[in-house]
């Protein structure tokens, strides 16, 4: 008889809510009851209000229980959870939970299911098929497939991945690099972390395919130091990948060499900007470079370099395995494929929702997210991280897509959606945006370095009621200068949260409320 299998997430989100304690309780109960169970550590399915969500392999498939506290474990054994027995924490088949059922899991198909450090398990669930097909297609056809799929950079800028790859592939150099930008610093986002912790081989496979496509033999993952759990898992995955010939010399029996090294950031938000990241990788201060030259021509250590976000790279294996058309057929307008939307902050159902582009913000916040966790009315939603705009309910009909958000003076960025209830003070949020920019500015360009500090001061004066109208005009002018005069998105986009707060929530800045209408 095979041992019963219990799946316990070791995603940092689940860990932060006590999944290690639950594992210890399971081991203790197992000994006490004289059982012999197999505990498999997975990533998270991304239903964080149900974490730690424990799954049991039963005759009718996996059955989930959650949120499980260590103190619940003995009771769960007593309720015969190993056979999927009834219990107040029983959630049934995870695939039937509406939050999961409504998703299109493409990039995250295995996350939370696969034994994250078993290459055999990864292969059994469809892994490595993309790499195998890539090896049979050859360089030019891989680039063509990725271009045809319509995949755009998931880090925030939305630049077509295929074009980036082609530019690097055409560059002539003895050494080229693939750099994975895992400096996921935007508040409200955790998709990169989840995939690195839950399906690390998927990222490694995507990087290897990128290496073959552009002719690079070396890859770096630049990962933020705030993610120690992801760093550890990725390190182990790379060792396993090397041992099993997924990485190293002659990968997967081919003539291609590709190896990956991890580099850990040091707490600088601006290093998520690709040129600052490259300077940091080279051991310098993480300051933004002027473009051109493009990283595709002159990137890491002066060599042609593809810099892609984690999700962009982790999506490539499935695109190659299933063909470009299957991916391109999903989506909305010029935003093709799926987007892992990360519902965060004060939302009732907080978690990762991967879906084709085109849902409205209202669908995401009210319907999928279930409103606020506090039970109070939703007042504002910040989309796209600290440089993203605050949206009022009046704009909830905006479809989730790159162009639609740009048209509303916002951005989808890396897909984070942070929900705030009616206790939020929007002047305080606007001030924070400027303060954050002043803390994180790399200092290279004046609008960002000085402008952010002046921005904090001007907002303080507005809040105190000092010459309010004049200072509001001054703040708008400052935002204009920062937007058009900054070298990168940090100074250039921080006006989004500030001006959106003023435009949509004037009453928090001492003005008259809009009365539900949206200012033109």
């Amino acid at each position, binding site marked *: 008889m095979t041992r019963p299998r219990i799946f316990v997430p070791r995603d*940092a*989100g689940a*860990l*932060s*809510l006590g999944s290690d304690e639950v594992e210890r309780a399971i081991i203790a109960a197992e000994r006490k009851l004289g059982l012999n169970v197999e505990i498999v550590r997975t990533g998270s399915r*991304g239903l*964080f*209000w149900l*974490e730690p969500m424990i799954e049991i392999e039963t005759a009718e498939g996996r059955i989930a229980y959650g949120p499980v506290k260590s103190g619940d474990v003995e009771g769960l054994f007593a309720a015969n959870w190993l056979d999927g027995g009834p219990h107040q924490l029983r959630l049934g088949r995870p695939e039937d939970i509406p939050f999961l059922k409504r998703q299109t899991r493409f990039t995250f198909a295995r996350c939370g299911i696969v034994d994250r450090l078993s290459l055999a398990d990864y292969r059994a669930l469809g892994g490595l098929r993309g790499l195998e097909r890539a090896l049979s297609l050859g360089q030019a056809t891989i680039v063509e497939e990725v271009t045809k799929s319509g995949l755009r950079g998931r880090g925030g800028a939305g630049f077509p991945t295929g074009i980036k790859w082609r530019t690097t592939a055409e560059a002539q150099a003895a050494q080229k690099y693939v750099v994975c930008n895992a400096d*996921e*610093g*935007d*508040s*409200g*986002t*955790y998709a990169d*972390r989840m995939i690195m912790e839950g399906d690390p081989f998927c990222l490694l496979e995507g990087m290897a395919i990128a290496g073959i496509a552009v002719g690079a033999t070396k890859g770096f993952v630049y990962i933020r*130091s*705030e*993610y*120690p759990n992801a760093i550890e898992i990725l390190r182990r995955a790379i060792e396993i990948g090397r041992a099993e010939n997924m990485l190293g010399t002659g990968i997967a029996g081919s003539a291609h060499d590709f190896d990956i*090294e991890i*580099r*850990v*950031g*040091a*707490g*600088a*938000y601006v290093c998520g900007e690709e040129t600052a990241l490259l300077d*940091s*990788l*080279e*051991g*310098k*201060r*993480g300051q933004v470079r002027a473009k051109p030259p493009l990283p595709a021509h002159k990137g890491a*250590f002066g060599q042609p370099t593809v810099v892609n976000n984690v999700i962009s790279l982790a999506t490539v294996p499935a695109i190659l395995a299933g063909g470009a058309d299957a991916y391109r057929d999903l989506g909305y307008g010029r935003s093709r494929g799926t987007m892992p939307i*990360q519902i*965060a*902050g*004060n*939302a009732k159902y*907080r*978690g*990762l929702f991967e879906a084709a582009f085109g849902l409205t913000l209202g669908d995401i916040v009210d319907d999928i997210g279930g409103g606020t*966790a506090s039970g109070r009315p939703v007042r504002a939603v*910040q989309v796209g991280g*600290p440089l993203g705009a605050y949206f009022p309910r009046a704009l909830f009909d905006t479809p989730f897509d790159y162009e639609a958000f740009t048209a509303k003076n916002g951005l989808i960025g890396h897909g*984070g959606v*942070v*929900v*705030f*209830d009616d206790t*939020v003070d929007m002047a305080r*949020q606007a001030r*924070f945006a400027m303060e*954050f920019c002043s*803390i*994180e500015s*790399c200092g290279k360009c004046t609008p960002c370095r000085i402008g952010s500090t002046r921005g904090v001061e001007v907002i303080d004066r507005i809040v105190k009621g000092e010459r309010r109208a004049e200072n509001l005009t001054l703040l708008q002018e400052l935002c204009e200068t920062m937007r058009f005069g900054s070298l990168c998105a940090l100074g250039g986009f921080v006006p989004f949260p500030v001006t959106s707060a003023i435009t949509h929530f004037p009453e928090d800045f001492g003005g008259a409320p809009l009365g539900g209408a949206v200012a033109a």
Partner: protein
Amino acid sequence: MRRAIPWSSARAQEIIEANLSLDGPALPILHALQKEFGYIDREAVPLIAQALNLSRAEIHGVVSFYHDFREAPPGRHVLKLCRAEACQSMGADALADKARENLRVGWGETTADGRLTLEPVFCLGLCACAPAAMLDGRVFGGLDQGRLSALIDQARRP
């Protein structure tokens, strides 16, 4: 958490040399030094500068640029509280204010008994488990006043 050892330039030299074969070794060296000693001692700057054939100013520039690198030893434990928007939406500001008041420290400072350093962090990627914190590299989510106080008390126990 593994305790940091007191500064030793001989040990620092070994760490620097062990990383010299890497491309762009400055950050890996600084991380390794901080892991060993808990901070980047002033004396490390000329050692690194010499090993990398860079000026002391350039290395000082790198150390001071990154929030992670401390220029003085921290307390026995390090508590990082997330100050970013997702945690703010779940009351992180009030938690942080209370913690600073109770511990009588500002951001980046260490309690008088030397047991706890309080640092801000801008996002731990636990935005769906807010408010979140990290104590000596371990993550904690869904915090409230009671859970955070318990965490702090535990860390400050002799």
